[in-house]
């Protein structure tokens, strides 16, 4: 029932905003809808926490401890992002960057995007999962090109083509999966239901599944932004409106990774070997290293943090690849804190760029003097994302690194170098933006920094104290993923 | 074996002897130099006369002088007195002895030197700072060199306390320690440098190009100057005593049995006479070197000291 609410609200919201999206109260409506979605997500979460996994609508939907916390997280960040985008988009409109029509598109697509992500998370059908992922791309493409600038168009085009092609590979993988499944489960509806597949994963045909996993990994991996499939990501993040960058970085990547992991579970069950894990570790490590070096060339602040997202996704993928309770726990934790922190950073960056009227790092100076809140938000957020305790990102990085040192020592030199380079790159740039002299005037509009500090507070909390029920989620999920 | 009182008495005697006899040694050295350069010389007691004269004069103090400047001469004198008490000039195992071993002894000299250098900088004249700088330059090489000498000796005797060193060396079967030969050479060089003798420094001139020690005490006068002069003569004697203790320890009394005193005194007198003459000879035959050569000179001393230690490990252990 909650699932109906969960998916219904954004869907209807999308329709409603398609009509009313350009009205004066549209942003508030948008926020209200996301709020409602969040509430239903919370209710659902409560259900799962006490009742355990549940399936609905003849098993078409399946919610267990693994995806429920992603659902909650997605709904939450989507909600806070609407809070942020309320003043942000107003200011953009003031600056004449946006027409009412664009705003309408933005609002309704935003809801639709939320819907697709939630669908991808809650569905039990691997095919529908694919459909939802593709739909998520489609909904965001037009948002990336919202400003209609040449750069944004180019970014959107690359986003569309690369992700589309990637997703196509994923479809092929899904087909292969089905191909293997119907041998065991027989043709028809149930053969793509994850729960059923999971039940019989031991008897699935290994060769097919290994082939399938390659396609799935390349496919969904493109959306996760794993190097060298990541090339759409920085462009899309940099050129789209900041709220979209925030949700892309904070949520979409997670959802894509979720898809990969769901499949990994099946493949591991079928293969009895560490094939999938090795692939993921390889991709993860490569992404971390490449992203780190890319970071040290950035001139555009949003690109900077886009690459940092690639780095962190790589880290998470690496952790999932390592497997084992600790690493998986850490990976899940890292998913959470990364999306919280990264979206917070994008909020702060959004205000900063609006102040400076430019996304170029060299044009942003002395935030801490022009508007201390934004400055501190950016500074603390960056420190958090760089893995500085007592923020939560450190907790997960701590677990990942120590486990890696224990399980996969060969990888640690790369991680050490990559993290060092990344720190040098990101912090050097953030420091120049936050500190120093400046001539920038203050802006008339009050920035919406509640989301920023709410997120950072949560991340800080997770660094010092992980509530038991959350820990239990993670543990159950880790046990599930293995 | 020793009642504390007699021990303390012996200690006092030794210290007094050193303090009082120090100018005499200086006089003797100067006399020898005079003779060696065919001059009649001013006589053995000249230093005492000098001190008396200075003590009678009125002190003139630069306006810029701080209390530190005035305190320094006394501190210097105190340090030297302490040093004189620590070194077994006549006898070992005196009550002072455990208060400081060789390292501490080097520490005492360092303390005195730092105070003098600071005092020299206190007035804020070009010569003062120049002197201080040069003094510290000489010191930072001479001090480790001296330590190396001591280390060699203490590696032989497995101890850094002078008394033990002297006793071990005094009755060790092996009379010739090759390591000590190196050490002795290094020690002589250090002695020359530390006591402002030719070839490193020339106590007799106020030539700005060459002077080190004199440059530091330019601003002192009267009683302050007297104390400093006296202190440096004590320093000279102490160094001689150290050299004797390390390299010709025979005749030094063990414990304070008064019976051995005459012999010890005689031996000391003999050794000092010879050593003083030797120093005079050395100074006459060698020429003052440029100040920038001093580091090389002392560097050599330092290396000799290290070599001494190494040879000890190679040949004697």
């Amino acid at each position, binding site marked *: 029932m909650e699932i109906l609410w969960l998916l219904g609200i954004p869907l209807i919201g999308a329709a409603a905003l398609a009509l009313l999206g350009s009205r004066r109260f549209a942003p508030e409506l948008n926020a209200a809808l996301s709020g409602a979605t969040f509430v239903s997500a919370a209710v659902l979460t409560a259900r799962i926490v006490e009742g355990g996994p549940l399936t609905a609508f003849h098993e078409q939907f399946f919610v267990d401890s693994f995806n429920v916390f992603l659902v909650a997280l997605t709904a939450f960040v989507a909600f806070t992002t609407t809070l942020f985008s309320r003043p942000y988009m107003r200011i953009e409109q003031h600056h004449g960057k946006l027409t009412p029509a664009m705003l309408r598109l933005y609002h309704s697509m935003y809801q639709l995007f939320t819907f697709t992500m939630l669908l991808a998370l809650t569905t039990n059908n691997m095919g529908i999962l*694919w*459909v939802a992922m593709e*739909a998520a791309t489609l909904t965001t*493409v037009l948002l990336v090109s919202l400003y209609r600038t040449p*750069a944004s*168009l*180019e970014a959107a085009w690359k986003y569309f083509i690369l992700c589309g092609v990637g997703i*196509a590979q994923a479809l092929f993988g899904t087909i*292969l999966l089905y*191909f293997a499944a119907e041998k065991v489960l027989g043709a028809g509806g149930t053969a793509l239901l994850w729960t059923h597949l999971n039940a019989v994963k031991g008897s699935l045909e290994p060769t097919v599944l290994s082939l399938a996993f390659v396609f799935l990994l390349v496919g969904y991996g493109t959306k996760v932004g794993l190097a060298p499939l990541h090339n759409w990501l920085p462009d899309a993040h940099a050129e789209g409106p900041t709220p979209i960058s925030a949700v892309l970085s904070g949520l979409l990547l997670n959802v894509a990774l979720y898809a990969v992991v769901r499949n990994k579970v099946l493949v591991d069950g079928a293969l009895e070997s560490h094939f999938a894990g090795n692939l993921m570790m390889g991709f993860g490590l490569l992404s971390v290293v490449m992203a780190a070096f890319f970071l040290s060339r950035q001139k555009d602040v949003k690109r900077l943090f886009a690459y940092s997202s690639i780095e962190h996704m790589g880290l998470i993928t690496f952790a999932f690849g390592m497997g084992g309770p600790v690493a998986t726990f850490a990976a899940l934790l890292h998913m959470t804190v990364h999306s919280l922190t990264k979206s917070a950073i994008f909020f702060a960056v959004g205000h900063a760029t609006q102040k400076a009227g430019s996304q170029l790092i060299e044009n942003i100076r002395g935030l801490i003097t022009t508007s201390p809140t934004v400055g501190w938000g950016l500074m603390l957020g960056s420190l958090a994302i760089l893995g500085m305790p007592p923020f939560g990102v450190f907790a997960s990085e701590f677990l990942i690194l120590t486990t890696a040192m224990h399980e996969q020592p060969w990888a640690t030199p790369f991680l050490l170098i990559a993290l060092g380079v990344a720190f040098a790159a990101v912090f050097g740039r953030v420091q120049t933006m936050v500190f120093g002299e400046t001539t920038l005037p203050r802006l008339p509009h009050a920035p919406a920094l509640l989301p920023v500090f709410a997120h950072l507070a949560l991340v800080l909390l997770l660094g010092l104290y992980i509530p038991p029920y959350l820990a239990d989620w993670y543990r159950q999920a880790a046990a599930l993923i293995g | 074996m020793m009642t504390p009182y007699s021990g303390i008495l012996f200690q006092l005697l030794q210290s007094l002897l050193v303090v009082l006899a120090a100018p005499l040694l200086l006089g003797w050295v100067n006399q020898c130099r005079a003779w060696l350069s065919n001059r009649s010389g001013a006589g053995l007691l000249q230093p005492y006369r000098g001190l008396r004269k200075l003590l009678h004069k009125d002190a003139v103090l630069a306006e810029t002088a701080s209390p530190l400047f005035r305190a320094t001469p006394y501190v210097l004198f105190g340090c030297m007195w302490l040093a004189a008490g620590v070194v077994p000039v006549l006898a070992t195992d005196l009550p002072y002895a455990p208060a400081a071993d060789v390292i501490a002894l080097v520490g005492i000299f360092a303390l005195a030197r730092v105070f003098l250098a600071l005092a020299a900088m206190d007035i804020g004249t070009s010569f003062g700072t120049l002197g201080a700088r040069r003094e510290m330059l000489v010191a930072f090489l001479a001090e480790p060199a001296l330590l190396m000498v001591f280390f060699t000796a203490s590696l032989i005797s497995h101890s850094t306390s002078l008394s033990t060193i002297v006793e071990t060396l005094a009755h060790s079967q092996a009379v010739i320690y090759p390591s000590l030969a190196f050490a002795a050479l290094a020690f002589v060089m250090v002695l020359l440098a530390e006591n402002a003798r030719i070839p490193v420094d020339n106590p007799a001139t106020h030539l700005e190009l060459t002077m080190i020690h004199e440059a530091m005490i330019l601003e002192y006068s009267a009683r302050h100057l007297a104390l400093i002069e006296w202190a440096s003569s004590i320093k000279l004697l102490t160094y001689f005593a150290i050299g004797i203790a390390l390299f010709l320890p025979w005749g030094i009394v063990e414990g304070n049995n008064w019976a051995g005193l005459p012999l010890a005194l005689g031996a000391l007198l003999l050794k000092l006479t010879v050593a003083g003459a030797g120093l005079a000879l050395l100074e006459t035959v060698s020429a003052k070197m440029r100040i920038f050569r001093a580091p090389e000179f002392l560097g050599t001393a330092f290396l000799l000291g290290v070599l001494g230690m190494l040879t000890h490990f190679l040949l004697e252990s």
Partner: protein
Amino acid sequence: MPMTLSGQFINLLAALLLLIAFAMLSQRRILSLINLFALQGLVLTISTLIVAYSTNQGHLYYSAAITLVLKVIILPWILHRLIRKLNIQWDIETLINIPTTMLIGIVLVIFSFNLALPISQLAGTVTRATLGIAMASVLLSFLMMITRHKAVPQVIGFLAMENGLFFAATSATYGMPLVVELGIALDVLVGMFILGIFFFQIRETFNSMDLRHMEKLKED
């Protein structure tokens, strides 16, 4: 076992599909590209129908219908209108010259056949070789996307890839569950519309459909 008639038909169509894929790879004119694409759709429909008939899987008829409507009628029609509106029928040059592309294509075919071999061994369906062909055509259209400069051919390549996948779905596995196929079809349709919007935006911004105008965003 002796190949049934329907099985032989399907293999024939599969071969045809592959042929078309090659033709697209070598084709220079956009218009004929579109026609080839439509043809591919048609072949796909027929093969689906045959599979549906021979294995009487009811829902495959639906998907055949969807294919017909979507890939033989609507999409080509949209594409035709587009290129007429943007009048870009003229010839298109490729990054790599055609013969090389063909050679690479052949290598790809061999590669994918070898890849699919062990799998199609254990395929219980009448159509064993088709999986390899499907994979081959997917990779070929991928190659085509890589080699084309203009936006439209790239998109056609994309759609052709979709076709290959669809073929794999129908012939190799007797079709995915209907929900999924509907979803896929919907996505393709929406994607196409969005692309349509795009073309005009690109056109009015760069007044050309040449992708070489869209190489500004890079690290340097």
